[in-house]
């Protein structure tokens, strides 16, 4: 039995002990039944996404119907409508806030995590505990002064300020995850480099960084996903110029007419970058979440 796995390596190969043919056959039937059940459950779970994408390709008149239209005239017209309503600037804002904040977060988190895991720091617990605890604090609790401050300095509806705030939101997760990845680097390699007289820069850039590159990709991806999907701050702190995608989606709901296809098209466009990135980098994503969670 050979099964190719694209995602995580499946380490458990359980060999059933040799059994009588009749019991083996019943096991086989049960196995097929379980596979069918699994697929039905997975497809049921995935259904809302399928239905959203499907609806996005329907003309508006066939989107909200009873019974649902399963064989509509497929069209790209609603995607065109989304861009005609000026979606592009919002997507660009989302991209720049997400990319910008992710790069800044990594630039701050990698050195900090390095200090916390590889280099000797007294009381590792204190700074780590502090950083993680900031993630526990509800953003809602600090939004009022942030709003007042931004209003006072003219920083509302400004993509740079939103980017900076996303740094604060994602920094703890990135430090937490990077620390786990760095702790996995064998100490001997670092010590060998230090004995060879490698300076800090060589130690970091030539020795450690190449080893943890997949970890950096994982941390970066997760920060990017959280920033791209962030709604609360974006909704409150931006209005037009710096508006990002999540709070804009609601404006496709139209109280007067039919809107389901155009809403589905806008939502599809909004989720595509992160979903594709998550699928492609599935291994890193799983690793990042598992590492951040378990170690």
């Amino acid at each position: 039995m050979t099964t190719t796995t694209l995602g995580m390596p499946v380490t458990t190969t359980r060999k059933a002990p040799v059994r009588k043919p009749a019991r083996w056959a019943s096991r086989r039937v049960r196995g097929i039944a379980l596979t069918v059940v699994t697929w039905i459950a997975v497809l049921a779970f995935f259904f809302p996404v399928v239905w959203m994408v499907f609806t996005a390709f329907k003309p508006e008149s066939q989107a909200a119907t009873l019974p649902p239209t399963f064989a509509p005239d497929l069209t790209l017209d609603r995607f065109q409508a989304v861009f005609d309503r000026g979606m592009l600037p919002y997507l660009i804002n989302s991209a720049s806030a997400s990319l910008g904040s992710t790069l800044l977060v990594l630039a701050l988190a990698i050195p900090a995590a390095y200090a916390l895991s590889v280099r000797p720091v007294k009381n590792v617990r204190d700074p780590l505990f502090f950083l993680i605890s900031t993630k526990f604090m509800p953003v809602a609790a600090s939004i009022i002064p942030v709003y007042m401050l931004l209003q006072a300095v003219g920083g509302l509806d400004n993509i740079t300020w939103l980017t900076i705030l996303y740094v604060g939101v994602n920094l703890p997760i990135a430090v937490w995850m990077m620390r786990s990845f760095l702790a996995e680097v064998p100490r001997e390699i670092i010590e060998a480099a230090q004995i060879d007289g490698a300076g800090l820069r060589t130690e970091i850039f030539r020795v450690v960084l190449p080893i943890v590159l997949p970890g950096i990709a994982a941390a970066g991806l997760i920060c990017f996903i959280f920033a791209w999907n962030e709604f609360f701050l974006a909704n409150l702190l931006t209005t037009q110029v710096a508006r990002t995608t999540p709070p804009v989606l609601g404006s496709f709901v139209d109280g007067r007419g039919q809107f389901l296809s155009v809403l589905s098209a806008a939502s599809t466009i909004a989720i595509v970058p992160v979903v594709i990135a998550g699928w492609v980098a599935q291994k890193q994503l799983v690793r990042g979440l598992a590492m951040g969670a378990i170690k």
Partner: protein
Amino acid sequence: MTAGRRSLAISRALLWPALIVAILLTQIPLVATLYYSFQEWNLLRPGQRGFVGFDNYAKVLSNGSFLSSLGNTVLVTGSAVVGATLLGLLFAVLLDRKFVGQSVARTLMITPFLVMPAAAALIWKWSILDFTYGMANWGLSLVGLPPVAWNTELPAATVIMVLIWQYTPFAMLILLAGLQSQPREVLEAAGVDGAGPFRTFTWITLPHLRQYVEITVLLATILLLQVFDPVAIMTNGTGGSKTLSYLLYERAFIGLEVGEAAAYGVMTVIVTIIVAMVALRTLFKVFSEEGLMNR
């Protein structure tokens, strides 16, 4: 000795930028919230601003909104965490088996976690749970059941449903990592000793998974305590879905009661700290047991 001190200085230099950014972006606003919470301050009456001591807190604790919101938060977060963990465990067990299309199934399963929460809330509200055209009510009608006004009659359940849908993949990923870290020999030995799959699961797999279940519950609780997006988008806090985050948002940005909202914020933080302390202690216990903190 001097080399050690120099090394310590470098570590500090690496750590401080991240700490300073975290303090500036998260701690200062929190202190400001605390300061505001002792003030009478409505944005519509800027002239009447002044220090009022604990008046806001007395108001917050006596008018009942806080306690009912606290109850809603516990209900929504608790149900979503339990639901997502149980479903996540089910899917983890199903997907841990080798079967046709295993990696495709896993890819599809992680998708809801990647979907932008704002898009998920809108699609569920208008495409799946809409009273007239929603797929859920159409499904009910197929089996002869009357339609349900999900968004208006069962707002809390609606929010919980969407949260479970989004967080099941998150739980599944962590629990799947746990399942795959089981020592193969133990499982094989159990099989040889004649333990059926059910007994192997209850006596070997479940105890092994305990730690992973704990981590899943903790992380999901932290993420979900702050839940805002589906409440704001689907129900506007009606009928038992008004969580603390939404209550604070409503008081500050719709009611314009800065002082009172700040008091809600401080109370929210206190509640979160209590939950977080328990959560962090358990997390760090897991750490020290693995010996990671002492390296």
